[in-house]
């Protein structure tokens, strides 16, 4: 039994801001986070735009370069953004505006907050590199983002639906074109939910674990062996 880890204090990095309750935050144009300038210097082509809204710095990044930026922010001794707070997406009401994927990062050592944004035009397929190799926290966050918005994260080990059941037919609920009460009638929704066949409750891994493969009815076995991976 190890005799305990050494306690990691926050705000020990050089130039860490002193904690203070933000007062009179201006709507736009506050002081940007120093990391934004460092990012613009280090990735001139990847960083498109930096804006400060209500005191928080947002950096618009080239979607393809998100993983490199995240890895640099995480490993760079001057930045040390080791805490990934959230991965989510925003779809605006007018259809032309692209879907924005948002990463919230915190540097505990320097007490800094940074928001990375990647704009995905609606016409093209919604694909973004996954930051899972750098932040293990992104595993479920990205699965939920896929489940709710249909954004595929390349490099994610196990991209399946996490909130809805895997054979969910109605599409991606948080998209603006998805009606609030769902596309089907209530009885149809209930019928689909109740009729979800047994293997819908077990993912492929579990079936292989239980070596229960031969217990399954034959027609399900063919479907499993040949059918598309659920959530594809």
């Amino acid at each position: 039994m190890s005799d305990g880890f050494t306690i990691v204090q926050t705000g020990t990095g050089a130039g860490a801001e002193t904690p203070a309750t933000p007062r009179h935050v201006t709507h736009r144009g506050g002081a940007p986070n120093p990391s934004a300038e460092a990012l613009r210097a280090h990735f001139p082509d990847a960083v498109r735009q930096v804006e400060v809204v209500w005191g928080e710095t947002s950096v618009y990044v080239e979607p393809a370069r998100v993983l490199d930026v995240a890895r640099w922010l995480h490993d760079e001794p001057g930045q040390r953004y080791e805490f990934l707070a959230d991965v989510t997406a925003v779809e605006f009401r007018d259809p032309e505006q692209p879907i924005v994927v948002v990463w919230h990062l915190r540097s505990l050592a320097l007490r800094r907050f940074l928001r990375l944004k990647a704009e995905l035009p609606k016409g093209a397929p919604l694909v973004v590199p996954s930051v899972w190799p750098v932040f293990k926290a992104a595993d479920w966050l990205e699965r939920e983002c896929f489940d709710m918005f249909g954004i595929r994260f390349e490099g994610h080990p196990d991209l399946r639906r996490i909130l809805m059941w895997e054979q969910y037919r109605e599409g991606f609920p948080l998209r603006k074109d998805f009606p609030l009460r769902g596309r089907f009638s209530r009885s149809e929704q209930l019928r689909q939910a109740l009729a979800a066949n047994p293997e819908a409750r077990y993912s492929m891994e579990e079936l292989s674990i239980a070596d229960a493969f031969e217990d399954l009815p034959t027609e399900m076995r063919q479907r499993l062996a040949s059918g598309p991976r659920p959530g594809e």
Partner: protein
Amino acid sequence: MATTKRTVEVALATSGLDAQGRPQRTPLVVGGDGSAVALEAPPALEPDLAGEHMLINIGPQHPATHGVLRLVLELDGETVVRCIPHIGYLHCGFEKLGEYRQYNQILPLTDREDYLNAPGNNIGMAMGAERLFGIEITERCKVLRVIAAELSRIMSHLVWLGTTCIDIGAFTPFLWAFQERERIYNLIEDWVGARLTPTITRVGGLAADVPDGWLDLLTNFVRTFPRTVDEIDRMLTRNAIWVGRTIGLGVMTPEDAVNYGLSGPMLRASGVAYDVRKDFPYYDYETYDFDVPVGTNGDVYDRFLVRVEEMRQSIRIIEQAMARLPDGPINVDDPRVILPHKHKATSEMESMIHHFKLVMEGPRPPAGECYVAMESPKGEKGYYMVSDGTSKPVRWRIRPPSFVNLSAIPRMVEGHLLSDVIAINASIDIVMGEIDR
């Protein structure tokens, strides 16, 4: 790219089929440096003596899963070889509902999302909306919100303590904890009228001011509550069964804890002293004198110690907050957000217009976005709101601490015994309403 067991596992399961058409599977284990290493059969036993792995469901309807969580466990005898959590059994589309409601109508949603920390959620959501409007709330409202947040933290820790004790086998602390909870319920019921879903705040202020005589009840509670905490502490901290069942379980190293995005008591028990009230303070928390308990072993026992100590620190904060509670209005007098007073609305033309606009359309923030984080009993609870100038947000995102904490459960549970799975799962303090939103 370092592949882990799941990547290779899933690939194998789908493509590789052996002669009888069954999926071929060689169990793989994450090596030290993250590379996948084949798990050879334990050498000690002859191959034909090795038992087959068993798949069991600690499913949605289970007394020890603190809600409708489902853990599928692959067991070798009693040892957990792999744990696959399934969530989503309480997914009620909160974020979709948020896009159809005005800001004051979203507050009742926050009560029902993390139902153990309802006042705390209301405060977080109101803080986010006020940042979106650019409003500064009054001093009295700030201090009352600090009191409500700390009471809510105590309530949430009491439910966690009660249910974890039942999971590990002690029933009496559950009754003690709920007896104290009923006393906090009485306080909040006197204040706002509801017990579990009070919706204490409004955008720009509070639902109601504290009734007179309430502070004496609060003083009485603050004076007698530590006695119960000491009683529970004395019963559990050096209890051989409790210590035996919790020490050394589900250990998370500080680097892993930060990388897996853990926050709150889970992170502090692993030795990382990150507390949103100290590092990204709000409502003048930096002026309150309280300390942040930090564990050094990152196991279930340390999480217990951290949470019990946090209850005592909350009492200290409430005492200081009561001492500095100023008089004055609780609502900011900004007509865009708060309804003007009754007689002004019926006498002055301008107030009537404000009254009408607020009631019909609801407050309308300028276009913009903001992410506001607060220290909920489970961890860093964030509200990310994007507004396009209308009275209903474009996106209302909740950063759920127990969702991210729970995602680390396969890492914590594998290798332990079946009964330890229950103790580790209880130590994460999960609330399924917040996880599945």
